[in-house]
């Protein structure tokens, strides 16, 4: 018989990244109105079209209602009680990393993201975002040699305005949903990636998001454009300190893949999840969408979601180009009073498009873990295929696992397959492992790791290691 308490102890591990960096920051006053938006825009010295984009989004947001269809239970958010812009104070222009506040570098070092030249991870370029602004981007010169643009979105607005004007808001329009509209109105920073025609990005690109202030919302925006026959692998990681209050994180990610281009977007999300009583934690309301515009283009989302008090996230693919491919690989782990409502949308518009969905949910404690996904075959998607697999694992009898797949087909010459299953950690397998001398904790961790293997295999090397580490941290503490 599995000792329930033992399993529960295993999943109760403290949050390692909960420290606060004591640094002087520049904040604007709380609240949200047109003046605040103008102020953010002014601080970032933005062109008129971007201010117009923000104001239009704000007008739309004012007319929208907060969505409640996911049935997530949380206290009403007071949008006037949030600071929409916070930046660490530093010299105006940074020419090299040496000028970045050492405290900031130390913070990222502590998080395992070394930014200093000596300690840079080999072959991964990092854009580090602290509260509302990007503080440093590494390997820029090296990337520039290949024509790859990798910088913060604020810099891109200044230096590559034409690309921003052409693509911003084309995948996730400002009026898409409540949180996307809010982000469009107040987004502060984020990453911008442009891979020119025929270039395979020489290294993995990575963004690291850190929330430091308790009363600041983080609204970053990421835009990745892969031109014809190019390819890129992008990684994203996030952490936040422990506060008793809930912090709002409403990001928008837009990906565009043209003919034969491929984008791989991987996330390891480890925002602070709140304590055992559910006090504090990040509200992670994110809109991520990729557009496979070109023929034979490919967008692949992989995510490991372990943090946040509430996750509301559906990375999606619009498959427009002929023979384009969309993929979604996800592991979501919830514990205590966490709620995760995550999944994907695969919208097949062009002919012969293909999509694969593999989702693994693990719920422990009193948490709620839901998969919610949409697969749609449009009238022109002849010869298209989809395969979805959603598995849930329950640890303890208080956790809940839900599956809500929406499947819609308007094309007779297409195929959709969906399967889902729910199970618990098998007592037989546990017994077997233990009889071979493997500690209980390790056995549980091995089984969870095995359950998630299909997804971990899709993660880039560095991330697979980090993901394993994360699950280990959540599940057993000692492994890794």
């Amino acid at each position, binding site marked *: 018989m599995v000792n329930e308490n033992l399993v529960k102890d295993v999943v109760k591990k403290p949050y390692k990244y909960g420290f606060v960096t004591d640094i002087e920051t520049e904040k604007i006053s709380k609240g949200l109105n047109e003046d605040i938006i103008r102020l953010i825009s002014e601080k970032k010295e933005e062109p008129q079209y971007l201010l117009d984009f923000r104001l239009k989004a704000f007008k739309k947001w004012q007319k929208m209602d907060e969505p409640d269809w996911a049935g997530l239970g949380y206290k009403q958010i007071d949008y006037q009680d949030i600071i929409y812009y916070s930046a660490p104070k530093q010299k105006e222009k940074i020419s090299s990393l040496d000028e970045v506040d050492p405290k900031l570098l130390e913070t990222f070092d502590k998080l395992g993201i070394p930014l200093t030249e000596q300690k840079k991870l080999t072959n991964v370029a990092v854009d580090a975002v602290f509260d509302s602004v990007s503080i440093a981007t590494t390997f820029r010169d090296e990337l520039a040699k290949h024509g790859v643009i990798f910088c913060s979105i604020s810099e891109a607005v200044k230096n590559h305005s034409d690309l921003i004007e052409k693509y911003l808001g084309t995948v996730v329009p400002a009026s898409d949903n409540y949180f996307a509209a809010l982000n469009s109105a107040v987004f502060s920073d984020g990453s911008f990636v442009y891979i020119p025609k025929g270039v395979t990005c020489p290294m993995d690109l990575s963004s690291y998001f850190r929330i430091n202030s308790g009363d600041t919302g983080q609204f970053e925006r990421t835009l990745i454009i892969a031109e014809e026959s190019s390819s890129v692998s992008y990684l994203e990681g996030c952490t936040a300190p422990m506060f008793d209050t809930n912090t709002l994180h409403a990001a928008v990610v837009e990906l565009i893949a043209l003919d034969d281009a491929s984008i791989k977007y991987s996330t390891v999300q480890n925002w602070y999840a709140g304590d055992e009583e559910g006090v504090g934690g990040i509200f992670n309301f994110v809109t991520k969408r990729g557009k496979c515009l070109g023929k034979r283009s490919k967008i692949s989302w992989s995510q490991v979601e372990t943090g946040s008090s509430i996750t509301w996230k559906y990375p999606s693919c619009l498959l427009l180009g002929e023979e384009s491919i969309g993929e979604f690989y996800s592991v979501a782990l919830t514990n205590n009073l966490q709620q995760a409502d995550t999944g994907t949308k695969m919208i097949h518009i062009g002919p012969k498009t293909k999509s694969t969905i593999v989702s693994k949910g693990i719920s422990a404690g009193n948490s709620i873990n839901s998969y919610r996904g949409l697969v749609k075959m449009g009238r022109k998607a002849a010869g298209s295929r989809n395969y979805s697999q959603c598995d849930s694992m329950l640890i303890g*009898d208080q956790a809940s696992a839900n599956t809500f797949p929406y499947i819609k*087909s308007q094309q007779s010459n297409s195929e959709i397959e969906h399967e889902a299953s729910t199970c*618990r950690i098998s007592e037989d397998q546990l017994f077997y492992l233990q009889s071979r001398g493997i500690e209980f904790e390790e056995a549980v961790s091995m089984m969870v790791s095995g359950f998630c293997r299909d997804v971990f295999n899709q993660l880039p090397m560095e991330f697979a290691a980090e993901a394993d580490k994360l699950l280990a941290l959540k599940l057993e503490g000692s492994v890794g």
Partner: protein
Amino acid sequence: MEIIEKIKTNKLIDKQTEIQKICLNKLKSSPLPNPKSELWRLSNKSKFSNCLNYSINEKNPKYNIPFPENSQNAIRLIIGENCQIKLINENYSIQQLSEDELNKYIKQQIACFDQNENWSDLLNLSLSSTKNFLGLKINGSKIPPIEIFSHASSNSLNAKTLVIFLEKNCAIELLQVNLGKENSSLSQSTFFLLEENSSVNHGVVSYGENRSNLLNSLNVIQQKNSEYNLGSLHFKFNYARFEISIKQSAGNAKTNIKGMQITKKDEQISTYTKIDFNGPNGFLDQINKSLADDKSHAIFEGSIIVPKIAQKTDASQLSRNLLLSNLAQIDTKPQLEIIADDVKCKHGATISQLNEEELFYMRTRGITLPEASKLQLSSYFQEIISFIPVSKDRWDLLDKLLNEN
């Protein structure tokens, strides 16, 4: 919507029964379901309002049942026409429920009704007069098969209600047939109570005519060790809804469901199922098939709810769909909501077309394309049809489906 207007102004029925009063009162404040709710969002609005655009008809003109009169000793009842029954012999008894028993049970049910989930029941109970209300209490063994018919009459809306109490250790085969008439709406609600150790093989065949509509709902409560098998078939309706709610009240019960809906022309037929496991060791095996052709729309939404108390539940749900035309549409949403940890639950869904390789093989053997398609379809239908009790031998449903449709 004539009916709704009358509900609002309380001019629908002169002499209201107690049940009608309660339901009309519930509907009065918001007479229509929320079109944004999960159960109604895909419903075709104009078809739905058309379905309610008839005046209520409490009379039942003589109706010739298109199915052959049975030759065996089956019991045939037509709701609203000849439903006086009292059969008591040494093995079994079939009696009508008293008004008190009926009222008590229905009131209990209404108490937990939800405006959107049970809207069809609320409407049915508001409209169904005493004459169209059949309540049966069945016990004993060696009970002959029972056939119960409900039918609509042209240019009107008919509401029929059936309540069946199946007492302990009793097993029956019941076929329920809902017949639509041209330009008509039929509201049929069925309430089943299965006591301990009882078992039912229940068949529901709903067969419409040109521009007929159907609101069909089925509420089943299963007590311990009961077994409920349902085979259902819905076809030829301009607009039809089949809402199934099954509650295993104390677990340890078995439920098997095999359902099918076939849509052609611009028809819309939807099936909604909700299976509630309220105790341990529950079992469910469900398969729902849809076939959509021409410009039609088939919908399936199935939910399985396994609360903490329902440990060791074993539930599986499969939605299989055939989309035969590029103008047709299929929506399917099987869903699982699970809190208990020691359970085995799975669901699956597929949407595809006829298998081209199989068609090709048959054609190389000299079988024409239409014949080969028919052969494939017949095997697709057969799995469901063979599960429908009584009818399978005498009424050639397969033939009806392949040739008439």
